[in-house]
């Protein structure tokens, strides 16, 4: 991922170079272990364990020993129409949140990069969605969407556009309603990342293009975008992953309802594992989710590499 740009500083002599160099190497291990052990024990290990679980019939609170069942979970999953429906909703949600999130964040970043008054206020307000617990974001929007006491319906009533909509429990409105919340909640991070990219674009190039008579759109396309592209792609890839894996927002807003219309794959797997105790089956769902995310990312990043030679890829 581009965010991980290794610096290319010229090699410098390491401290204490020469014969005394052996000793610090042991020191390095000593420094690394405190973080490495938890990562291995509580992150790498459990993930491998989780993948193994997908090939077993592990259940919660069962006394008989867990058995290997090969790919039976995956075969069942293949015919589980509820899961694939949830999967489809997950993809709609992920794309429906990520795309507007990016466009809105780009707009805001471009504005914040201008010399406008009230910029400080926008920066301050952008903190709110970022810093808030996701549960509170969900609670807050429940209040906004509330049928009687919500501000959304009241505003619609004031504008004479009707009202009395039950946004979060209407079959047609629930998914769009939660997508709006997803966009709102994720916008700040994206904005900050894009703003950072904008502040790295060469100002002289911009001015030169303006002198040459290039309009705002042309300047954006030829100067700003090439410089912004690597960051834009990285943050979008991350957003796509995060959104596809999101849980708390929708859990609080609708808990998957009405009639499963907002049941994201994470909610589905959570219920399977911790309500019905089907650990093995839920782990298989997790594996499928990882596989699909990897494919989507591979396609996304391959597309990026193909058209990546237009220059400006140096962050």
């Amino acid at each position, binding site marked *: 991922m581009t965010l991980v740009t290794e610096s290319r500083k010229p090699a410098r002599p390491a401290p204490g170079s020469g014969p005394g160099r052996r000793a610090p190497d042991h020191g390095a291990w000593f420094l690394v272990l405190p*973080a490495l052990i938890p990562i291995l024990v509580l992150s790498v290990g*459990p993930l491998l364990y989780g993948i193994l679980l997908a090939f077993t019939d592990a259940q919660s609170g069962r006394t008989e020993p867990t058995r290997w069942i090969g790919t039976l979970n995956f075969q069942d999953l293949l015919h589980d129409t509820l899961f694939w429906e949830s999967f489809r909703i997950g993809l709609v949600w992920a794309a429906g949140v990520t795309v507007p999130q990016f466009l809105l964040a780009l707009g805001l970043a471009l504005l914040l990069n201008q010399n*406008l008054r009230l910029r400080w206020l*926008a920066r301050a*307000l952008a903190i709110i969605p970022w810093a808030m617990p996701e549960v509170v974001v969900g*609670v807050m929007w429940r*209040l906004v969407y509330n049928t009687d006491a919500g501000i959304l319906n009241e505003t619609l009533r004031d504008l004479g556009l009707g009202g009395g909509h039950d946004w979060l429990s209407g079959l047609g409105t629930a998914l769009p309603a939660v997508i709006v919340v997803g966009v709102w909640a994720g916008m700040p991070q994206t904005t900050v990342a894009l703003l*950072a990219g904008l502040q*790295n674009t060469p100002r002289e190039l911009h001015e030169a293009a303006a002198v040459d008579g290039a309009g705002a759109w042309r300047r954006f396309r030829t100067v700003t975008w090439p410089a912004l592209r690597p960051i834009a792609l990285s943050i979008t890839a991350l957003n796509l992953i995060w959104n596809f894996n999101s849980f*708390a927002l929708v859990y609080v807003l609708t808990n998957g309802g009405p009639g499963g219309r907002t049941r994201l794959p994470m909610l589905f797997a959570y219920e399977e594992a911790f309500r019905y105790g089907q650990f093995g089956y839920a782990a298989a769902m997790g594996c499928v989710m990882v596989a699909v995310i990897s494919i989507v990312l591979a396609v996304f990043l391959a597309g990026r590499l193909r058209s990546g030679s237009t220059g400006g890829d140096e962050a």
Partner: protein
Amino acid sequence: MRTSTTARAGQYAALLAYLVFLAFPFLWLISTAFKPARELGSLHPTWIPRDPTLDNFRQAFDEQPLLQAALNSLAAALGAAVIAVLVATPMAYVMARRRGRLGRAVTGWVVVSQAFPFVLLIIPLFLVLKNLGLINSVPGLVMVYVVWSLPFALWMLTGYVRAVPAELEEAAAVDGAGRLRTLVSVTAPLLAPGIVATALFAFITAWNEFFFALILLKTPERQTLPVILTHFIGAEGVADLGPLAAAAFLATLPSLVIFALIQRRITGGMLAGAVKS
């Protein structure tokens, strides 16, 4: 660059729209928190409560063990932040100062770990913690939070370490300071602000976290604030709006205050770790 007046007006209009979009839900939360029950039951709610009251706050504390939940959240977040920084700083130092295979492997892991859905992680963790008797306990949750906040902590701290010129350390070494001495008296003071910012960020992340807490904490007296908040919403999805808003507002305040303090450093740290190194 000169911009025409109409373009400027358009920019301000757009900025205003953003401000409204970003701010209104939070203002509505505050407004709801101070409204008496009778106003919340009536049609035509107003932005400013007609009859502002603190009843919702009192009722929120009566209905749910908010104080205990806040203490649990504090313990979990504090434990996670301190431990995460303690274990991440040395590793970040190594990753920043020498580019070996290990550094690349860890960086790769940081990226890859973002892609795994938490279900795949939480089921085995749940089984492991259950065997260790650490389900429904704050220490168990702290362990999970430490690992969970490590990727970002490593990321930020590596950037901060790179910002400390290695030449300073070399100079100290030339002056005869030992390696440990150099780290403690030269590097650490310069790194301190970055370490504090990282710790605060880990604190907020843990304070806000919901998914792991929901699964690992079973009884109300052990649960953290985000989990307790969901208890205000009944099984049928019907919520007691006033107390819910009041509790949600209180639960957010620490995050907002801390985040406001460190926001510049966070964005700075992200940049230092990422864009330009």
